[in-house]
């Protein structure tokens, strides 16, 4: 038995070193090279820049509080939309803290769709449902002194439909929608990869 163990030591050690180098260095570094060459925008985080400064990522939600912007969902990531602390509330279905939070939010925002008053899984959800966007149109339009129909047209334009009608949910990216709003008001946004 001990003799067998001794015989197995060399392959165990050599394979650990070789396969760690292959799968832990060669593989991820090669993929990094390929990804940077083929899909540089996505490989670097789908960043959005305005006037040369990074204002965020198209994939990562960010906080919006001003009435003139569409608001994202609630976030349990740090103090809200903190990408260094992704995660959900992890409150269970019979948690008093959850029920109290939702009850208070429903009183403050009567009629708000469910996605707006629940925390996402990542705390960084970039999307809201079309209903949640439409529900915010009157507030945004009033704050910006725009006709609700114009704002609603932006929302309709921003809705992404499910693939083949099956895969995915209809959704609206909040950051992209808000940038379109700003563009309407004359603040130019541009995508740079």
């Amino acid at each position, binding site marked *: 038995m001990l003799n*067998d*163990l001794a015989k*197995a*030591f*060399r*392959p165990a050690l050599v*394979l*650990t070193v*070789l*396969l*760690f180098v292959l*799968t*832990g*260095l060669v593989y*991820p570094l090669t*993929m*990094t090279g390929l990804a*940077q060459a*083929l*899909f540089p925008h*996505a490989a*670097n*985080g789908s*960043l959005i820049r305005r006037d040369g400064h990074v*204002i*965020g*990522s198209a*994939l990562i939600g*960010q*906080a*919006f*509080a001003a009435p003139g912007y569409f608001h994202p969902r609630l976030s349990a990531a740090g103090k809200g*939309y903190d990408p260094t*602390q*992704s*995660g*959900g*509330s*992890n*409150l*269970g*279905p*019979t*948690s008093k803290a959850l*029920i109290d939070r*939702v009850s208070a939010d429903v009183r403050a925002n*009567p009629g708000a*769709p*469910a996605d707006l008053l*629940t*925390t996402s*899984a*990542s705390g*960084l*959800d970039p*999307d809201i449902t079309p209903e949640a966007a439409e529900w915010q149109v009157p507030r945004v339009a009033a704050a910006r002194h725009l006709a609700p129909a114009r704002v609603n047209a932006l929302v309709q334009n921003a809705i992404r439909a499910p693939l083949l009608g099956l*895969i*995915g*949910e209809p959704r609206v990216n909040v*950051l992209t929608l808000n940038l379109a709003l700003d563009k309407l008001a004359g603040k130019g946004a541009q995508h740079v990869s």
Partner: protein
Amino acid sequence: MISTDLTQGTTPTGWGLILLFVAICVALAKPVGLWLFALYEGRDTPLSRVLGPVERGIYRLGGIDPAREQTWRDYALAMLLFQIVTAIATYTLLRLQGMLPLNPRGLSGLSPDLAMNTAISFATNTNWQAYAGEATLSNLSQMLALVPHNFLSAATGIAVAFALFRGFARRQTRFIGNFWADLVRVTLYLLVPLAVVFALVLVAGGVPQTLASSIDATTVEGAHQTLIVGPIASQEAIKMVGTNGGGFFNANSAHPFENPGALVNFLQMLSIFVIGIGLTWCFGKAVGDTRQGWAILAAMLILFTAGTAIVYWAEAGGNPLLHHAGLAGANLEGKEVRFGTAASALFAAVTTAASCGAVNAMHDSFTPLGGLIPLFNIELGEVVVGGVGSGIYGFLLFALLAVFIAGLMVGRTPEYVGKKIESREVKLAVLAIVVLPVCILGGTALASVLADGLAGPANKGPHGFTEILYAFTSATGNNGSAFAGLNANSPFYNGMLAVAMWIGRFFVMVPVLAIAGSLAQKKHTPASAGSFPTTGPLWIGLLVAIVLVVGGLTFLPALALGPIAEHLAMLAGTTF
């Protein structure tokens, strides 16, 4: 406020998504199975021309003769030694993180208990994460300390499955293959190519792949936001294909950088199942009757579809306590809008049916019944498709038990795919099956009475108990998903769960290899008129029943204290 509408807000689109998924799984079984079968037989693959020199170089440096086969004892010894050496390597890398390169954010080394828990977690294909990736690990640790385990623990699982297949297929021999050759060939010709292709697909779909670590952004409203990036796609690809499940980020596949869109999400779910599905066909081919593989796959998919339907139905129905508070509709707490209810429910079922453990929604916030199914899937032994390798060998243990019980009923020596199943195999199978309940229920009971254990749960009432039960279930089942409210990064949980992970992995693998060794020595027994047929609806029904009764019934009392009690409390309007 109980809905009397039986559809409970589920939609034809949602059901369509689930059916489409199952249909694609069935279609994948043979093509993937053929590829696996070539590796099982040790034949050249189209990739051998390119990677052959690498394979031979590895053998030469390691002093390995791939043609020299091992007895089950030597095979098990090599396998165990390799796990220990790789786990020590990872432990060392994690402890020394602060001194190693590719760490621009200056993250320090991990504490001894956390580094040990993480090393064992990744070596056992569990990928339980007691840490938050983005706050704890440097890019070097993610790449070099963790990604190799994603490949090698997956390859180990498949190797053990191959050894068991050989036990069934061979006659009167002591040899069941060469562990080193199986490990290297599965890694080079299956996992690496799959991961390379899938990683590129993921990047095309939006997953970052860079050596940068963080990007400072100033948001539209002028706030500061630090975006965390890194070599995410390369880790994500093998995390799914190898049913590992250890995310780059704390939020795992719910994080938009790990899983940016609905199509990527769908491909991630398929990638969790792809090898496990193929292995069922490969088993049939190996024992010379592909119908044997199809029968197993049918039983698996029946169990899978039933479980998925319950999760979807429960989550779409939502939480009556929230309905009462004025928030109508599905349970969206802890779910992402781009996935919605159906794809979140499907993902939860897939990740727990397989031993993956990646999550795209927070299971902790599921409704009680929606959270019960993921828990139950793991407690069945993750044999519903299951982890790569571990799913099929776990399921074959149940098949041995099923022919044994059928044999008792008709009074004949049980046979399965041409082998007589005798006392030794049944004893070993029961040993491997019993490990799961002993470890899960024992660990949960201990944690439920000790102060260190009770310090873990974030939620009160039955849900807090479920958090503990889920942790021991996930660890022992080598799943790695969590009711993430549990604060598991304490010396108590790090230690207990590391032990559970080790036992749950190797106290099953070693008996499986012993069964392989025992079967390989037997003669071939051709099926006769008195043999119980192991294809067809009767057999499939028996398999489903045995898995549910033997695998599931043990856990019913614990489930009654957790999710079932919570469900009743929820209906009664009680909060905790």
